């Protein structure tokens, strides 16, 4: 079992009322409300959180990025990854992930990630995402080619990592005269790639076809089971049997030394008015061409206010009931997590510990309790349930590679 800590790095000092008055807290919500003085303080608090996570024995730190919104302060996940590469000794640096379609030059991304892998002495897990709809608009990247760019940029990055340069790359969306980066990853054949997601079937199918672990982001137990069913089917078609080493799960869990305080702080998981990416016009979060054609009808009806959000929206109480939010002391949190592990059998588990305006003191307490009490218990449960991480299972990095990192079927 690989156990991680995650925070969205909330820009918690923004004036909430201004967002409510404007009617949106994403994309177009003015950055005049971003205070760099508290921004500076918060970034340094997040570094303190990550360093404590390593100190208390957590296996990995999960990083992500978003743009134009207070729910997430990381505008470039590689910046924090580079900081952690230099400041930590042991934790895996798990990018979940770099939004590939936003890259105009994926080779540069490959270089940055190779540098992070070398500086961290091989601790990088290089997850990739499509980026949210609003990210496409914030970056001026065409949402209609999002998935094509995602897949093509992935291919280019992996080639930049694994092929001897110089070579030329002529794709549909990316053309590079000379790919020859003088920075290549320490890990061979290349750093592990994990793929997080929420709703798109296409992403699950793609991850399974590449034999990359899929990380279900805060889905309900039933949704998660549906994801694994699809993943397993694609895996079987691709010629391998998927197991816990292919399955990751991120869940909002706040741990405290008192039940009441835990629940109170857990309410902050809904600090963005229940939408974790903030209030936004539906056409910002799902621009035309960005979503699955099979979801088109549902999203246009949602955008016109004629149906509920296809991504789902539930109350805090319902989310607690469904175990999508867990709050409590280690004694009450562990049995709930046990149920999730038993039902969905992941080999990778990330706890999204703190959000919103939870104080730094309470955040640090949460991390300490996760590292010192919750995760040791989870490790025992994982052993009992035989839930191995990709590292423990020595799983191939991707399809076409064997467990030694050689091309499958290659002689010698």
């Amino acid at each position, binding site marked *: 079992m690989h156990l991680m800590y995650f925070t969205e790095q909330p820009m918690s000092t923004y004036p909430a009322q201004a967002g409510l008055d404007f009617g949106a807290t994403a994309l177009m919500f003015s950055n005049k409300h971003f205070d760099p003085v508290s921004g500076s303080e918060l970034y340094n608090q997040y570094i303190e959180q990550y360093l404590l996570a390593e100190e208390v024995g957590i296996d990995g730190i999960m990083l992500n990025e978003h743009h134009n919104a207070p729910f997430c302060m990381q505008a470039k996940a590689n910046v924090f990854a580079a900081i952690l590469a230099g400041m930590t000794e042991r934790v895996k640096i798990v990018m979940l992930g770099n939004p590939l379609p936003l890259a105009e030059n994926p080779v540069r991304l490959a270089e940055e990630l190779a540098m992070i892998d070398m500086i961290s002495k091989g601790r990088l897990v290089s997850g990739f995402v499509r980026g949210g709809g609003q990210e496409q608009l914030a970056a001026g990247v065409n949402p209609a080619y999002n998935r094509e760019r995602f897949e093509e940029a992935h291919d280019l990055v992996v080639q930049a990592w694994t092929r001897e340069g110089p070579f030329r790359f002529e794709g549909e969306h990316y053309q590079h005269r000379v790919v020859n980066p003088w920075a290549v990853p320490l890990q061979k054949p290349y750093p592990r790639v994990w793929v997080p997601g929420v709703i798109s079937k296409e992403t699950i199918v793609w991850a399974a076809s590449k034999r990359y672990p899929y990380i279900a982001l805060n889905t309900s137990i039933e949704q998660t089971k549906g994801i694994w069913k699809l993943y397993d089917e694609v895996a079987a078609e691709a010629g391998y049997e998927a197991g816990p080493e292919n399955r990751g799960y991120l869940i909002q869990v706040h741990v405290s030394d008192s039940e009441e305080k835990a629940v109170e702080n857990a309410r902050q998981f809904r600090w963005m008015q229940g939408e974790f990416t903030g209030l936004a016009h539906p056409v910002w979060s799902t*621009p035309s061409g960005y979503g699955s054609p099979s979801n088109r009808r549902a999203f246009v009806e949602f955008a016109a206010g004629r149906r509920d959000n296809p991504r789902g929206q539930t109350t805090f109480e319902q989310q607690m009931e469904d175990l999508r939010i867990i709050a409590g002391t280690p004694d009450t949190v562990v049995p709930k997590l046990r149920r999730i592990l038993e039902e969905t059998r992941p080999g990778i588990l990330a706890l999204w510990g703190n959000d919103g305006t939870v104080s730094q003191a309470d955040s640090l307490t949460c991390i300490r309790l996760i590292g010192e009490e919750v995760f040791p218990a989870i490790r025992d449960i994982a052993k009992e349930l035989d839930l191995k991480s990709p590292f423990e299972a020595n799983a191939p990095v991707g399809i076409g590679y064997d467990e030694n990192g050689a091309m499958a079927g290659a002689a010698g």
Partner: protein
Amino acid sequence: MPSDWVEVEKVVATTRVKVRRKGEGPPLVVLHHDFGTPPDLPFYDLLAQSFDVVVPEHPGFGESERPVWMRSVRDLAALYRALLNELEVERPILVGLGFGGWVAAEMATMGAGDVERLVLVGSMGIRPNEGFILDQALVGYMDYAQAAFEDPARFDAVYGAQPSNDQLELWDICREMCFRIAWKPYMYSVSLPFLLSSLPVRTLLVWGREDKIVPVSTAAQFEEALPDATLSVIDNCGHAVDMEQPEALGGLIRNFCTG
């Protein structure tokens, strides 16, 4: 669709294109807006009283097949030239509405001798010096279509006060195709004004004074770029002149083409 319109399909540039046609007289091709077109606009019938009216549905907009290969508005213009060739439509009058104006202008620059007259109505295609072309990516489907009208009652008359979910889905499909071919720069070409500067085609420019999608001041930029252009601005009218003031626009076109 009224029964007296004839619908044909042609395959050009590997793409199946739907075309509606009606009327007798000089050939006149209407290129519709970025948010598609209802099949049976009074404007089309009005034109069909004086012209052989050809209304293609932009491929990838609405129900027609999406040309996945298409990357630019100039690609669309080139496809349409091939389509007109297939249809044996010679020296047509090109009437471009909004986004369709940009397509028409590109078509004319590819061979001015093939175009009898050019009519650009609230045309996109040039970067406005004042303001911007309204970015549909940031507004709802209905909000965008409504922005094309000065008078909300006119919108209601065409689409209904509460357009159907089918209509919303069609707008999303149109929007996706716009993104595919006109995402950046958004709805204009940096080179078009230069190509227009030597276009020997008599051109009528028509703008609604209250155009909220393409600023009315852009009309003057077209007028300045084109060697032979006349501008007519219609009061109490928005971007969708064809749907708000069909008779006024039809009259202007008739006069311009017979004069």
